[in-house]
């Protein structure tokens, strides 16, 4: 039996620097002996800067601070909520943001108009088409581009599909935060079918990069249409079945009803949009309040409710799913023929000017304010995210509620941290 040769490495080993000198030179590494107990003492660990911050961090009798997050399964991303508790009751909240801040606005101001679309994609990552839509809407106004009608219909069709996917996921996560495990499994089945469908259309499952200035990237194809047809044949029935899981669940309904009530005046003063504002009795839907694309030609309702609690915010979104299915039906019936892209030059240099484009996303109004200085990059690119405004209400909804209801309230507002932190 031949002896096996000893295993040798072909490359000579490079000597590694001794550990001691490496960590001492590296300013990013804190040595054990430098970590002292007083590092953790003050709350917050710097002098308070504002009146409100000082007030929050002054602890009253019997009160304690509790950090929820930044890594917490129920905060939908990396959100840190500093809760001031008195027993089980929430006294005050200070949300701490910025853990996902990437400076997307600055990056967009340093890239050309075509590239902006893929930089804004990961903001609202469960419904990224809408952020693209707001950006192209603003740019099309800057450049006076006319979008072909077929492209507009494809935009509405794919957008409404994604709205359903996003709302279905919302339903699952809301139930998960309230302790129900089953609905999330059903919502992922539903979302997966829609996302696979959109993957056939756009080529990607999550960050689509599909809308273009002046149209969309690619026409409808056979695989998308056949998947869509399959799904539409049972979509309405499936939606009823999924919502039935929660609507008739007594534990869920009793935990969500009357929790986190936002009244009409409060919703207006806080600039809340989307399903959250419609659950408080204000019929503000950008698709109807300030129509864009082909929405004026489509027949759909804007559901509203007056309770303004977590349950109403959930029910509103389920009503919107039904309206979206109606819109998709109409899009398929009325889909015109023709090109899906306007003719545009390779390098876009719009005339100096300002434009504001706003669309109704699943969470509310997504806006983009773009300023052109005549060059091929936007001079200013401002992104307005609905989750940012919706989250701002949290410090005013939570006080007085129990700690266990914190997640029900935050989750019913449906924040997405990718958009909030930009």
């Amino acid at each position, binding site marked *: 039996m031949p002896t096996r040769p000893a295993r040798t490495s072909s490359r000579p080993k490079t000597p590694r620097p001794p550990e001691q000198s490496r960590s001492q030179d590296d300013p990013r590494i804190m040595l054990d002996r430098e970590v002292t107990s007083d590092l953790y003492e003050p709350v917050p660990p710097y002098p308070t800067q504002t009146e409100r*911050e000082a007030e929050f961090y002054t602890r009253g009798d019997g009160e304690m601070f509790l950090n929820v997050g930044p890594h917490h399964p129920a905060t939908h991303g990396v959100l840190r909520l500093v809760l001031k508790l008195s027993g089980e009751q929430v006294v005050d909240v200070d949300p701490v943001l910025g853990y996902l801040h990437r400076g997307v606005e600055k990056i967009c101001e340093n890239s050309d108009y075509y590239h902006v679309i893929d930089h804004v994609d990961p903001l609202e990552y469960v419904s990224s088409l809408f952020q693209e839509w707001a950006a192209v809407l603003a740019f099309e106004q800057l450049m006076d581009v006319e979008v072909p009608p077929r492209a507009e219909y494809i935009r509405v069709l794919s957008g409404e599909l994604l709205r359903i996917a996003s709302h279905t996921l919302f339903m699952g996560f809301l139930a998960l935060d309230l302790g129900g495990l089953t609905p999330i499994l059903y919502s992922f089945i539903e979302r997966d079918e829609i996302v696979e469908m959109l993957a056939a259309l756009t080529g990607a499952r999550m960050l689509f990069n599909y809308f273009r200035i002046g149209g969309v990237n690619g026409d409808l194809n056979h695989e998308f249409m056949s998947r869509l047809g399959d799904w539409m044949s049972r979509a309405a029935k499936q939606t009823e079945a999924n919502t039935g899981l929660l609507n008739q669940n007594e534990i869920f309904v009793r935990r969500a009803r009357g929790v986190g009530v936002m009244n009409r005046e409060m919703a207006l003063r806080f600039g809340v949009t989307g399903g959250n504002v419609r659950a408080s009795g204000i019929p503000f839907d950008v698709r109807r309040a300030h129509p864009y694309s082909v929405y004026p030609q489509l027949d759909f309702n804007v559901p509203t409710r007056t309770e303004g609690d977590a349950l109403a915010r959930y029910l509103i979104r389920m009503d919107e799913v039904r309206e979206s299915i109606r819109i998709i039906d109409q899009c398929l019936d009325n889909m015109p023929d023709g090109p899906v892209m306007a003719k545009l030059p390779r390098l876009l240099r719009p005339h100096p000017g*300002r434009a504001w484009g*706003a669309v109704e996303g699943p969470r509310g*109004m997504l806006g983009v*304010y773009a300023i052109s200085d005549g060059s091929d990059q936007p001079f200013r690119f401002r992104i307005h995210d609905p989750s940012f405004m919706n989250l701002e209400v949290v410090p*005013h909804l939570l006080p007085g509620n129990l700690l266990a209801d914190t997640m029900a309230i935050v989750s019913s507002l449906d924040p997405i941290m990718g958009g909030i932190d930009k």
Partner: protein
Amino acid sequence: MDRSLKRRLEASLSSQLIAPIRQRHDQTEIRIGPGDVTDVLSTLHDSVDLRFEILADLAGVDTGEHMQVVYHLWSETSPDWLRVIVDGLSRDDPRCPSATFLWTGAEWLEREAYDMFGIIFEGNRDLRRIFMPPDYTSFPLRKDFYLPDDAARSPGEGVRHVERPYAPAVVADDPSAGIRRAPAS
């Protein structure tokens, strides 16, 4: 374009406008000075024939010469978006009255504009940084803040900080790099 909105605005705000009203696509744009912000926003919000009740957006803008604060408002009385540009804030000490007396929700938007541009909103009770850490001193969206590694046309072109792990402190402290310090408050 909503012609009647233009007439209504001219009737109620004529003395405070520092430039003619401009209309393009579905947007109407007015320009005011920082001294009139409180009056103009109150008029737009409370006046019976205007009723701009929804604050769609509040943005800071650095034009390179001065700062601006831009409000986008929505009203059921008009099919247009209304853009209110507060023009002519000094770059060295930009100050603007807060809009929180009308829209409490402007508090975080103003915190963001402060964080990114250093615009100080007088009357906002919680004006601290919101995205950047509290000990951060620059204002990243100002035009003299260059991206060190990725800006095609900036003096930072070609400097890839990711390849120089010990250098960021030097870059940040070097005044020639053009990074602005926070004004001592």
